[in-house]
């Protein structure tokens, strides 16, 4: 269990351990198939994820069956790790070339107040992700339910309210909807590009 907490503890503005919930990470392992990613065991269906994007359109992770889905938790004015993660996800898309159609990236807000349709639209434009990445927002109650379901910790820094401590991870979801892989914030884009076709086919 300590291992599970250690693996799921993320980066971000500072490390934030996951809240307990339906997170089922019990061990990490590496297989020849996924050379660098951590493997979440036991492998289970991904927790539900149904929120609205910044355009007010409903998004349900289940609608992306057949594709690999990369789920991460960020906020638009995150000063350090999140934008680098998003940049590296962008590079992974680029490395995938035509196979980028096999992946859907979903970012879930950890900042119900700061992530507005306007700030998210600006964020996606700046990161060249408009029309590519789904960025899900909502009120505190809606987002907190998603954080809990995914075992993600998100909490304002008491000393600096502009900073949100949160789990800085990327989850890899298979084409059949299983939450299988986990990547730390300092993942290499080539690793993601390597794994996406495998996740999509699983």
């Amino acid at each position: 269990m300590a291992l599970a907490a250690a693996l799921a503890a993320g980066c971000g503005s500072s490390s934030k351990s996951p809240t307990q919930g339906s997170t089922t990470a019990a061990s990490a392992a590496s297989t020849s198939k996924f050379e660098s990613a951590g493997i979440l065991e036991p492998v289970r269906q991904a927790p539900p994820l149904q929120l609205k994007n910044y355009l007010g359109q409903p998004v349900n992770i289940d609608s992306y069956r057949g594709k690999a889905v990369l789920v991460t938790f960020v906020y638009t004015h995150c000063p350090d790790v999140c934008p680098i993660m998003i940049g590296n996800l962008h590079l992974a898309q680029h490395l995938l070339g035509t196979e980028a159609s096999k992946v859907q990236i979903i970012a879930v807000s950890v900042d119900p107040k700061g992530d507005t349709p306007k700030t998210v639209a600006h964020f996606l434009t700046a990161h060249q992700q408009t029309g590519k990445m789904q960025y899900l927002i909502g009120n505190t109650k809606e987002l907190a339910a998603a954080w809990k379901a995914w075992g993600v910790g998100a909490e304002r820094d008491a000393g600096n309210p502009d900073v949100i401590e949160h789990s800085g991870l990327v989850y890899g979801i298979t084409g059949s909807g299983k939450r299988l892989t986990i990547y730390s914030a300092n993942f290499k884009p080539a690793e993601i590009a390597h794994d996406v076709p495998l996740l999509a086919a699983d």
Partner: protein
Amino acid sequence: MSRGARLAVTIVLGCAAIAALAVFGLKSSGSPAKGRRAPQLPREHLAGAPASLASLLGGGHGRPSLVVFWASWCDPCKAEAPALERFSQSPEGHGRLVGVDWSDARSGASAFVRQYGWTFPVLRDGEGTVGNKYEIAVLPTTFVLDSSGHIKRTLRGPQTEASLRQALRAVEGA
């Protein structure tokens, strides 16, 4: 320790390292020299005079040079921006600095350059491939190259004219 446990420890240590760099690196003044050859710079030109790794090293007239990775969406980069322009205009900085816009929309990057009145050469790494080769972990990041194009120091976080000058002198004196 099992293979899984080792991987978990590796991931956690990696996370801790990058978090530490991100949080504390913003004020860091440098890291030990790696001495590896600097990867080629992006070809896409954004502003200022055309530039390449060869022209940067040549422009330095046998002196160390700086490659600064930044992005318009990066708040610490905004804090650093005026200092970069001042440094590029100084006798010690003139011709020895190239900016590289990383994983950024071109429109936002161009507006940023105009806003801060940058006159030094700026290139664009729109997909982030070059920055990945440089192994940037935070923005801004400044690489100090010796006259032969080897990375001697890596400065993470916003720099000042003084810190840039000091870094160049340190490499010159090495």
